[in-house]
């Protein structure tokens, strides 16, 4: 084990996989950084420091610094994958999904199905996402709700450095296209990370981050830390919560959610996305249809409001779910008789 930041866990995992498998290729905007400038290649090394040193180690054929062209990046990742490579593409901000939606949704997600199962598209599209930096409406969004709805894509939301490592290695080795959603606010988070170069976390298996008998809190990505903080505060009052970290929203570990709710009978879903047609409503519907008899109270949903992400500190704080909002939601569901 080694203590690493989330961003370094990602960078190290890509580095190790590039060393292990010559088919692994990185591409994206400024993933080298400084190309064509007086400062030269690696002057920046990726704006998130998740690709630092890759260019020096692997060269321009395998570390492809692209112009600002999101459609071309995702499309090229698709073409690389169909031609036998294992691309790891970066879309600098998940918000830019709007620019490349066709290549994501109509192309790489559907190749295998449209082609009758006779192709593989082992592309990883990394997308730094989420709010917390006062980056306003076009640089702060989560997008898991869209991509989870797209058949053919797998969707990963690591909440810790260890998960970032194990899930990314799995994503790179997976033969299906994977959307890998790194929460920007977690990049600086430190934690113990396995240094086993074969360490993978299989998709579709949630992690029980806290255990308790009184309520079930389901979360993913940055919301997991908030849910853990809420559970720890409630524990001081003698209230025990299961905190289920989904890890992947597609596939979804339905069993982990249903098993927990069957014990607790009370469900709180936390989602950084706006409330309509979301992960929160999806899980609420799952529990309502498959564990209705276990429910002792209406499901509480802690989500962003149906608004764009605002800029000012006070507004963004009000917009985001928080440990305090989750605590209140748990108390609300416990008060239902």
């Amino acid at each position, binding site marked *: 084990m080694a203590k690493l930041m989330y961003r370094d866990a990602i960078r190290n995992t890509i580095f190790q996989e590039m060393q292990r498998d010559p088919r692994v290729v990185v591409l994206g905007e400024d993933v080298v950084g400084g190309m064509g400038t007086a400062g030269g290649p690696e002057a920046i090394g990726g704006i998130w420091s998740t690709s630092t040193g890759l260019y020096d180690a692997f060269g321009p054929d395998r570390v492809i610094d692209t112009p600002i062209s999101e459609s071309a990046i995702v499309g090229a990742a698709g073409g690389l994958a*169909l031609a036998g490579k294992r*691309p790891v593409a970066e879309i600098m901000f998940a918000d830019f999904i709007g620019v490349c939606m066709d*290549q994501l949704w109509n192309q790489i997600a559907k*190749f295998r199905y449209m082609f009758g199962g006779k192709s593989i598209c082992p592309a990883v599209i990394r997308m730094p996402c989420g709010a917390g930096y006062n980056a306003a409406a076009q640089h702060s969004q989560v997008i898991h709700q869209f991509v989870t709805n797209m058949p053919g894509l797998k969707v990963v939301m690591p909440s810790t450095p260890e998960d970032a490592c194990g899930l990314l290695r799995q994503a790179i080795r997976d033969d299906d296209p994977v959307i890998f959603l790194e929460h920007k606010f977690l990049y600086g988070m430190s934690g113990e990370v396995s240094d086993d170069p074969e360490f993978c976390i299989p998709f579709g298996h949630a992690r029980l981050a806290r255990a308790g008998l009184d309520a079930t809190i389901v979360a993913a990505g940055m919301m997991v830390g908030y849910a853990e903080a809420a559970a720890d505060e409630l524990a001081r009052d003698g209230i025990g919560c299961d905190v289920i970290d989904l890890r992947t929203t597609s596939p979804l570990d339905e069993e982990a959610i249903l098993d927990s709710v069957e014990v607790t009978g009370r469900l709180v879903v936390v989602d950084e996305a706006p409330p309509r047609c979301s992960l929160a409503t999806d899980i609420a519907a799952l529990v309502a249809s498959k564990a209705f008899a276990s429910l002792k109270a209406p499901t509480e949903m802690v989500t962003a409001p149906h608004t764009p992400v605002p800029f000012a500190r006070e507004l963004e704080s009000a917009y985001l779910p928080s440990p305090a909002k989750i605590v209140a939601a748990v108390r609300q569901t416990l008060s239902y008789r």
Partner: protein
Amino acid sequence: MSMQLNREALTRAYRQMKLIREFEERLHEEIQTGEIAGFTHLYCGQEAVAVGVCEHLTPRDKIVSTHRGHGHCLAKGCDVEGMMKEIWGSQDGLCNGKGGSMHIADVEKGMLGANGIVGAGAPIAVGAALSAKIDGPDAEGKLGVAITFSGDGACNQGTTFEAMNLAVVTKAPAIFVFENNHYSEHTGNAYAVGTRDDIASRAEAFGMKVWRADGTDFFAVHDCMREVLEYVRVPGNGPAAVEFDTERFFGHFEGDPQRYRGEGEIERIRTTRDCIRKFRGSVTEAGLLSDADLDDIDTATLDTIEAAVKASRAAPRPGAANVLENVYINY
């Protein structure tokens, strides 16, 4: 006319063009009966481009096609019967009935898919070209290439521009083949393309070398592509673009009333701009192939198509359970 083609190569080129022509003419008839579902866009008239390009390619070379893709698929070696069955929606089709006319692919053969989205193929081809660049040159020092076929409609899409720039910047061995058939769906280039009947100059402006040739003359296409491929296969040269002036004999889609056509236009292009008629005239005049040789190919082609249609009618239909297959490798 190219003097570099021997009798065997000429025979193969004619057979391929004729195969595409009869495949499409037969589909045009069969679609009227209602037996074939969905949207079909026929390639008739443009055969010299697909064949003149693909005759130069080997299996390591990739192509990415369009919604008007049957010609490219056949020219790259997709199985005729598998394609016909796919268009019929059979479980035995090339894509198990999951794709249909607009999504025929055979990745093993380097055919990375027809595409229902205009302009979507160009970035995918650049990815395949980047893969060829990573693989590096063969024993003769030549790179594999990836070719994207685009119509004049796709030359207005942002994806095409992004892909051209990315290919130039990364020196990817990509070739942008623009088949200018003068219509973006139902709209003329005089309106929809700012540079009118000049697409190559756009590619040139992105910093790549360009060629232009008459897309209704197989030999012009074939000779031009020899030069283009010689250039792009050299490591470090990067991409190229080619514009072929060609004609679309049918409408945008089957069922298109084509009210946008000029009077006598279809008859005129069928008479004066038919690549197969021109090919036949050239090779018989030069004494390279005889009418009897070509007639034999015509007959054999019709037999091939008839057999493919019969097989498609008899082929097994997919069932409801097949809907759920092939979304993921594991989930």
